[in-house]
């Protein structure tokens, strides 16, 4: 059941079959009922005719005239037969049409009662038999006769089968018509999906930048998300490529230094220290570029991350790591602050900023965060303060590039702040460095924008 077309066609055909079947059955029943009623009414009229024509003599014998109103009673084998039986069950009269035929006899009925039954006969199939019990008064004497009229079912059966042929013929035509119509509706209804498929193939093969067509409202969520995904993937690809290029370039300098050291001429640094310095630097470069490539950056498909618990987890961890220094780490974030971003990115950003603050703090570090809205765009402002020595204004730009600038090789300095800066940039934001109004040390304020 991998095909939507197949699913819909099968389901619709099943519904169609059930519906037409039930409708046909009901119509068939209704038609047969009404045809039978017609037969009964017709027979009833014949009985009334016979009773009107019947005559009784003084001896109590019932007789019917030669010329009956219904011509078919006269003609032998016409299919319409009549008979009259007395109270003792003995046949009193039979219509001439019954001549030479063995027909079943209907039972005697008490006066005033009707019976409409089907009786099997040897020569003419199942006969419809209508009987009526009548009472005749003669000299205060009550004589009972049962009038029966039978009809051959051939005409009725022919009528029913003609109706059935007509009915099922029309239904078959209707079913074919409906299936064709449904096929066309499906083709038309699903055509936007085929268009998306075609466009997606074009994007895949690089002929198209994104899904640019106009799509029905129901598909727009899907196509918008696909476009966002394509965009994110493309950005990621570019970031990987850049990171790779940067990595290769930035490794060249320490490699050159090391190669130069191979031709040692006795001047300069001792080889051991030089190797140590340069490998440390290379390690930092690798770490930094790896981190950059791993940064997810903002995309549309992010779930909101609760900020307070995330910061709390990092503070708990840092409390453990810096247990010896007994720092006072405080958190000032409303519990409902949420931000759409990659959790790993947020953790990396706040982890690096907080770790840096803990390194420089004398006793106190404070983390706070809030959301500001500019139109529909959210901005997360994350502020980390400490009571350390602070950073001189002319150092503030350089601090963020620490550890990764090609010409900076101060050993022992981490790449944390440079990573934090890059993550912030990936979210279209920046890091401002100032001095903490409450604690007196440095204040790092990272603002991140969501889409």
């Amino acid at each position: 059941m991998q095909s939507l077309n197949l699913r819909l066609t099968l389901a619709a055909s099943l519904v169609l079959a059930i519906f037409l079947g039930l409708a046909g059955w009901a119509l068939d029943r209704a038609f047969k009922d009404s045809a039978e009623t017609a037969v009964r009414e017709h027979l009833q009229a014949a009985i009334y005719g016979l009773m009107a024509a019947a005559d009784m003599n003084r001896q109590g014998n019932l007789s019917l005239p030669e010329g009956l109103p219904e011509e078919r009673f006269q003609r032998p084998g016409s299919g319409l037969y009549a008979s009259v039986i007395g109270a003792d069950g003995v046949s009193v009269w039979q219509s001439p049409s019954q001549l030479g035929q063995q027909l079943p006899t209907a039972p005697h009925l008490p006066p005033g009662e009707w019976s409409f039954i089907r009786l099997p006969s040897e020569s003419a199939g199942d006969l419809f038999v209508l009987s009526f019990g009548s009472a005749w008064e003669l000299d205060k004497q009550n004589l009972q006769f049962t009038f029966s009229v039978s009809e051959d079912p051939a005409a009725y059966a022919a009528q029913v089968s003609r109706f059935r042929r007509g009915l099922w013929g029309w239904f078959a035509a209707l079913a074919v018509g409906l299936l064709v119509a449904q096929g066309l509706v499906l083709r038309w209804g699903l055509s936007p999906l085929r268009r998306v498929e075609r466009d997606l193939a074009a994007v895949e093969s690089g002929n198209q930048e994104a899904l640019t067509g106009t799509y029905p409202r129901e598909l727009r969520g899907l196509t918008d998300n696909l476009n966002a995904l394509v965009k994110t993937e493309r950005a990621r690809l570019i970031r990987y490529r850049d990171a790779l290029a940067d990595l290769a370039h930035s490794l060249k300098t320490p490699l050159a230094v090391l190669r130069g050291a191979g031709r040692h001429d006795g001047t300069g640094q001792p080889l051991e220290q030089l190797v140590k310095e340069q490998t440390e630097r290379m390690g930092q470069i690798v770490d930094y570029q790896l981190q950059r490539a791993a940064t997810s950056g903002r995309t549309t498909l992010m779930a909101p991350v609760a900020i307070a618990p995330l910061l709390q987890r990092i503070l708990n961890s840092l409390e453990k790591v810096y247990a010896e220094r007994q720092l006072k780490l405080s958190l000032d974030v409303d519990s409902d602050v949420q931000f759409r971003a990659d959790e790993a990115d947020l953790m990396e950003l706040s982890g690096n900023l907080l770790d840096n603050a803990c390194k420089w703090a004398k006793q106190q570090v404070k983390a706070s965060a809030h959301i500001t809205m500019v139109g529909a765009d959210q901005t997360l402002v994350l502020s980390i303060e400490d009571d350390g020595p602070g950073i001189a204004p002319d150092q503030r730009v350089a601090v963020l590039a620490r550890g990764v600038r090609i010409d900076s090789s101060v050993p022992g300095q981490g790449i944390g702040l440079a990573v934090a800066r890059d993550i912030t940039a990936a979210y279209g934001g920046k890091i401002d460095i100032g001095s903490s109004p409450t604690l007196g040390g440095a204040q790092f304020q990272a603002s991140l924008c969501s889409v």
Partner: protein
Amino acid sequence: MRVLLIEDEDNLRTQLRDRLKVEGHVVDTAADGEEGLYAGTEYPIDIAVIDLGLPKLSGIEVIRRLRAAEKRFPILILTARGRWQDKVEGLEAGADDYLVKPFEVEELLARLRALLRRAAGWTQATLQCGPILLDTSAQTLQVDGQVVDLTSYEYRVLEYLILHSGEVVSKTDLTEHLYEQDYDRDSNVIEVFIGRLRRKLDPDNTLNPIETVRGRGYRFALERGS
């Protein structure tokens, strides 16, 4: 000190093991998580160094199970990826500190010293008990302000006794927790060392810093602080 080292990379494990032995530690090594968990639960470990990316059982899981088994010794994690998510997860599982690879062995040793001190309730790098001042980062001893020379093994024994001050430390404890290169592990040797230490710490026989608890072992008896 008895160090448990769980690291799957052979080179690094051997290198660290050798270095830790040179520093006077008894080292148990394991190359995967299951082996490491066994060693951690069965041996009298003082401190553990656990790599996060281990075969069979992840480092995080090893730490979790060690803590669940009521093992309280400090744990330092090594992580190749310096991601905060890994660090936070490791610390939340019960580790006490982390180190990102590649690292300097000196850095690792300093972290281990600090963790051991912290676990024994000392916050400073120098341990002072009355006139005795042991500097754990420089690994030197001063008595009444005078520098006293100690051999590496004597220093280890003294550090162990001070970190466990007030507790009875048996000879078996000392042989199980301190690696001693040049001598047979013979209890007489330990008596000889304790005798020498007493003379160096207390030449005038007035302090009696190391008490003998008959039949059980030794106890460092001086109060903390100056």
